[in-house]
């Protein structure tokens, strides 16, 4: 994917090695880990500080509170690990239009993640825009 800033496991490992850092031990210990079956949203970049894991619809992400505030318009990194749906879509509107129509969105397939939404995020036509603190709703597709 030309514009993808999604970090696959391989890419993440490659970057870690390139930076001369020790390769993280088990995948389960990685910062970006998101328990199977959901999509995780972090309040800060690089999967740090407060996070929430979403497993079913909350069109209004303000229903999910980080320890220090609401998720809506307050997310800086994402890791997608849903097991029963192929896609996790994020929109910048509260009531997301689906399957086309209007509104901006990004999406992640299972296993994809992005540590820095400010320089673009996920997949799709809008993925090279600044998505830091912009996501307002989430919807799973291909379930």
């Amino acid at each position, binding site marked *: 994917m030309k514009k993808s800033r999604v970090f696959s496991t391989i890419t993440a490992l490659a970057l870690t090695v390139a930076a001369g850092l020790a390769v993280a031990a088990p995948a389960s210990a990685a910062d970006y880990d998101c328990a199977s079956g959901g999509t995780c949203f972090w309040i800060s970049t690089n999967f740090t500080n407060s996070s929430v894991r979403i497993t079913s619809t909350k069109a209004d992400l303000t229903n999910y509170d980080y320890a220090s505030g609401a998720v809506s318009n307050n997310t800086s990194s994402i890791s997608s690990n849903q097991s029963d749906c192929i896609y996790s879509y994020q929109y910048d509107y509260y009531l997301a239009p689906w399957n086309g129509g209007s509104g901006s969105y990004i999406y992640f397939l299972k296993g994809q993640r992005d540590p820095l939404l400010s320089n673009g995020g996920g997949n799709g036509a809008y993925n090279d825009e600044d998505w830091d603190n912009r996501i307002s709703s989430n919807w799973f597709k*291909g379930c």
Partner: protein
Amino acid sequence: MQKRAVASAIAALLLLGACAPGSSAEDADKDQRSPLDKAPAQIAAIIDPDGGTVAPGSSRFIPDFYHTFLLDYVKRTAENVCLEREGYRGALDQWDAPDPLYKVAVTQPPWLPEQAERFAFLPPQPLADLLGNGVIVQTASAEQATSYEKHRAERVAASEAFAEAQGTAEYKSAKAACATDPDVKRWEGVDLSAKSSGPWLAEFQDDMASAFQDPQMRAIKNDFVACIEGEGLEPASPSDASFDGLYAVKGQSLAKIDEQQVRLAVVVADCKESTEAVAREMAIWSRYEAATYAKYERELTEARTYLEGLYGELDDYVASHS
């Protein structure tokens, strides 16, 4: 069907108005035509009551979800075919082909009464997606609910089995061999969005915002509100309204599809029909988008041509592998 007739007629009028023969003065100076009149087939809103789609014209230049899904499905299929050819017999990451319902795009659902009866205020989508997002679908039968639970359990088990299989030497060997497979390489290199991104995306968003602030939208809303109030409903308060607030009614929900929600949604769809709200709204929206289209005509034509070419290739691939 009355709605369909009205919507089709208005859509046709939009196009006919743009294509009608003009006076000799108009012929002499075609640049006097509005941007929408110059390119209705390229930028006018998509209003297709038979297919169930209503969407702004700008959606033509952005990958639709059906083909986004189809491309990923084809990538997966091509790789699975190769893995098996290389002798791999373990678990695969197998997907079902995308549901045809994904071809239906509805801005501000519900639109058609039959969509309202089936999906209430949610856009058309497979039952599995509704349930997978936690929507309470009281209109689904017990059989459908059981079938979904079985499907979901199979999905989760398959996902876990594939995750485990990826660590085996057999998988890694076959995967490495498939990296040079022509079919795998061909599809892995495809990016549906390659021509879609550009400054026009933000400008189309601005067009949408401007369209919904247009004074003519207020007239549409007034007509719509008068209609729903005549049916005993109330408009939603601004804080509860959707992104534009045009058609939101008190009590509507995205969390469930039940008799009450269907009843509200059918009134909304009927009122949209009787006030011709959707055709009027989309005509305004199209006028704003047409100016952006004119500004980026070359790039957007390229994006559309690129997408149509890929859509055709994807459809052909699936037809030849099914």
